[in-house]
């Protein structure tokens, strides 16, 4: 029998965590609290340090600097097999020589738990695969293996469950279904889930809180709606969905709003949604927040005139437009096809408008393309 695993529980606290490999710093002075019972996602492109962070929490890597606490217990140097933490591995890492039943029972048997049968049966019911107990992993489909990997981890009722790109190997349709299922299972078992992914949609669907990571640090942390509606940096604005970032200058104030001059036109932006540090600013607007109107049609809110439709893509629920503005920038506009109005056509001259509350402001010295060149779907696994 192995040394008893510790029985710590509570919030997970990462304090000034750093991991370096020679000159390369994978995780850079990262501090973070993950509340007990939450579904937390670490989101970022390949190489951002999210997997390294997860491996340090699991105990598979030792931090160069910093500490990891579970509740009040310091687990920074605790061996993986002594941590009350279980992992759902990227490619599931099921034991090929054991039956599904024995795979799930593995952790229970190592800890000398008495009623293995009942616990395994219960968790197999939870993942709706009780009929597969006596099969070997290779006889299962990818989706089934994924559920067994999950069952093998949650059967131990760990204080913390880590999921390393758990749905990466599944096709799109199955992934959507599993996202909903994982969320449901998390609520059902009430464990803390820490989920690592490069897929922003996956993170947004499942997590209560998302930490967006870039180059070993956390760019921004918050609820999916927070991050989407009020990104703090260009990286977050571009990595989480798409954004139009328009360069401007704060030219005045009007109550709770800044007046921003963009290439000679005035728009307004709520002060509490601006992260600019001086007058130089990027005004950010999500493509679906824009409305397009023909010249002469009355519009309200922020208006930018002089648009020229460069491209129209009809994609069923919506139509996507590329609109070239007088200063040469092409803006992306998504219009829902729900008003019975015929779509605009290429080369029409239009104005675009939006509600001022949808505008967010970023520092004017940022790289407006940060985070947009990484296409999450095409990234390889870390």
């Amino acid at each position, binding site marked *: 029998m*192995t*040394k008893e*695993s510790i029985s710590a529980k509570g919030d997970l606290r990462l304090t000034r965590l750093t991991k370096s490999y020679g000159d390369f710093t994978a995780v850079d002075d990262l501090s973070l609290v993950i509340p007990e019972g939450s579904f937390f996602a670490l989101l970022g492109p390949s190489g951002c340090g999210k997997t390294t962070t997860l491996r340090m929490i*699991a*105990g*598979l890597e030792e931090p160069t600097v910093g500490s990891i606490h579970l509740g009040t217990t310091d687990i920074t140097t605790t*061996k*993986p*097999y*002594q941590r009350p*933490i*279980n*992992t759902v*591995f*990227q*490619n599931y*890492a*099921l*034991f*090929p*020589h*054991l039956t599904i039943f*024995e795979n799930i029972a*593995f*952790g229970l048997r*190592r*800890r000398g738990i008495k009623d293995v049968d009942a616990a395994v049966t219960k968790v197999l019911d939870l993942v709706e695969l009780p009929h597969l107990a006596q099969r070997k992993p290779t006889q299962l489909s990818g989706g089934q293996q994924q559920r067994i990997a999950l069952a*093998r981890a949650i059967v*131990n009722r760990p204080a913390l469950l880590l999921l390393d790109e758990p749905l990466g190997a599944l096709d799109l349709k199955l992934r959507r279904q599993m996202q909903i299922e994982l969320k449901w299972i998390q609520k059902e078992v009430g464990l803390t889930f820490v989920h690592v992914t490069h897929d922003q949609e996956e993170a947004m669907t499942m997590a209560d809180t998302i930490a967006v990571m870039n180059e070993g640090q956390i760019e921004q942390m918050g609820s999916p709606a927070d991050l989407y509606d009020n990104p703090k940096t260009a990286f977050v604005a571009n990595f989480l969905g798409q954004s139009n970032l328009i360069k401007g200058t704060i030219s005045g104030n009007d109550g709770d709003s800044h007046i921003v001059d963009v290439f000679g036109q005035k728009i307004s932006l709520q002060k509490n949604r601006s992260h600019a540090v001086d007058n130089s600013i990027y005004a950010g607007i999500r493509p679906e927040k824009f409305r397009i109107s023909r010249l002469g049609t009355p519009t309200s809110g922020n208006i930018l005139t002089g648009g020229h439709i460069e491209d129209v893509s009809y994609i069923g629920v919506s139509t996507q437009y590329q609109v070239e503005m007088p200063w040469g920038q092409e803006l992306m506009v998504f219009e829902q096809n729900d008003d019975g109005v015929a779509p605009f056509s290429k080369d029409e001259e239009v104005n675009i408008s939006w509600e001022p509350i949808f505008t967010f402001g970023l520092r004017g010295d940022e790289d407006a393309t940060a985070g947009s060149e990484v296409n999450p779907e095409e990234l390889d696994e870390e």
Partner: protein
Amino acid sequence: MRKISTPYLLLLPGVAFLFTFFILPIINLAQTSTQTPVGGGDTGEFEQTLRFSNYLDAFLENKEQFGRSFVYATIATLLALAIAYPLAYAIALKGGKLKNFMLILVIAPFFTSFLLRTVAWKQILGEEGFVVPTLRTIGIISDSTTLTSTSFAVVMGMTYNFLPFMTLPLYASIDRIDPRTLEASGDLYANGFTTFRRVTLPLSMPGVVAGTLLTFIPAAGDYVNAAILGSPNTKMIGNVIESRYLKIVDYPTAAALSFTLMIVILILVTVYVRKAGTEELV
């Protein structure tokens, strides 16, 4: 005309070769094994009399050598396994960039002749080598003890000569293990030793079985090591067969012994593979 499918054509050279150089000699051997000397004939003249008691006679006469062959082969196989497993494990899981280089080192002995290397062992274990004086100095062996012409020398020679046959299949099967399953085991409350026993070892069983067979089978029939490193007291069944064939020119006994050896090995191997293959190791 019916079309002959490609797989059969590809089988043809191998089948033809094995038929000529394996099946035919085996049939010939079987025929020889029940012959008896021609009455009043020359040495080496035999006639077919279907004397099956040749087998019993040959076996009873050489019980000791049979027993010794299997004992030596078993010890050599276990020693080779004990040496090769950590070696293969280290190369497969910790070899990194040096993996291929280390594998070449494992098979490097094949670049010189088997016979030559065994003769070299005679030198190493001889009075003029460094092993005996060293062991005498530390007092592990007494001044009158020698290492050549002993069962120790024969078993060591066999262990050394068959080590690559043990190492390579072990390496192949350990190398195939997904390191993540080992991490998963640690994640699921198994410490290093338990992980080895519950995951690494069961997953490397195909290599263990292949390696032990590739070592045990040739070791059981080996005669070179006993001839070069041993003495009359360490004679193995291979040595008996060799001398019956080439020196005494008693073909029927040699053939009967060969067949007996083959059958015993076949039975042992079948039992072993069955057991190793079906036994739940966990």
